[in-house]
């Protein structure tokens, strides 16, 4: 029974386990990460993300990559506005 009294500090240290450098289910993790970034994750996915996100280097890197790609698509890709002449044609045809 004495042994457990020493445990807390040992476990405290144990929490600082080395960061995982390999993710054995990375494809599934990427799907979850994408759902999180899309604002479409389920509660259990959010919970899994919250508990594990800072423990796995490939997943951390994937999170940043997926976020960058999503932001690049949204912010960098030029949005083509509707040409004025097309707008005029549509209005004219609808009103004819």
């Amino acid at each position: 029974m004495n042994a457990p009294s020493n445990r807390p500090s040992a476990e405290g240290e144990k929490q600082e386990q080395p960061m995982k450098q390999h993710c054995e289910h990375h494809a599934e993790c990427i799907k979850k990460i994408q759902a999180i970034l899309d604002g479409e994750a389920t509660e259990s996915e959010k919970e899994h993300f919250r508990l594990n996100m800072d423990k796995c280097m490939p997943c951390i890197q994937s999170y940043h990559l997926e976020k960058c790609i999503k932001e690049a698509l949204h912010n960098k890709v030029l949005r083509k506005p509707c040409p004025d002449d097309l707008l005029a044609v549509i209005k004219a045809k609808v009103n004819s």
Partner: protein
Amino acid sequence: MPFIKYYLSVSGTVLKFVVVSIPMSVVMSEAIIKEGYTDDQRYEIFNREFMPHIDSMYNFAFRLTTDEDDANDLVQDTYLKAFRFISSFEQGTNAKAWLFRILKNSFINDYRKKSKEPSKVDYQEVETTYNSEEAADTNYTVDLRADAVQDLIGDEVATALNALPVDFRTVIILCDIEGFTYEEMAKILDIPIGTVRSRLHRARNLLKEKLKNYASSMGYDA
């Protein structure tokens, strides 16, 4: 309206309603009200609900067709169809998703056939390829770094996007450029939400490969 779902199928002049779980008398009165739009109401709905989305619609059309003339024709056809079938649009519902759905159907029915891409089903080919590599896909990652993506310019990202087969390109446009929810995308594309999710995942894997090519060409050691 609760309890009512209208499914608009625009294919030529065919307009189809499927009504779910609602007494016929209510359906009839609803239909009468809808058919009863006056001309003024039709123009008012068109201008208030549909026209604000014309830039997004044009952008979607351009990203689908990758051609300005085709995008012009597609947007014009879509808006004229939307006006013709305006009685089936329920005010207060999601006009943007409704319009995108018509545009997507018009694209499949009218434009995809004549586009320069190998006739349709490139999606299925890619899908099959990916499915056959399902085991490999388990650990499939593209070796690409976030800072390499940050250094890409918009044209490079757009070119990578345009290089995707159209069905994969479509889900990325709808989700990441237009910001539709999975549920809205499922309605626009007529596919289950689970398929939206898996198709997005595959589309993004393909996009990462394309982006990696640009990153490598810029000298990033990915």
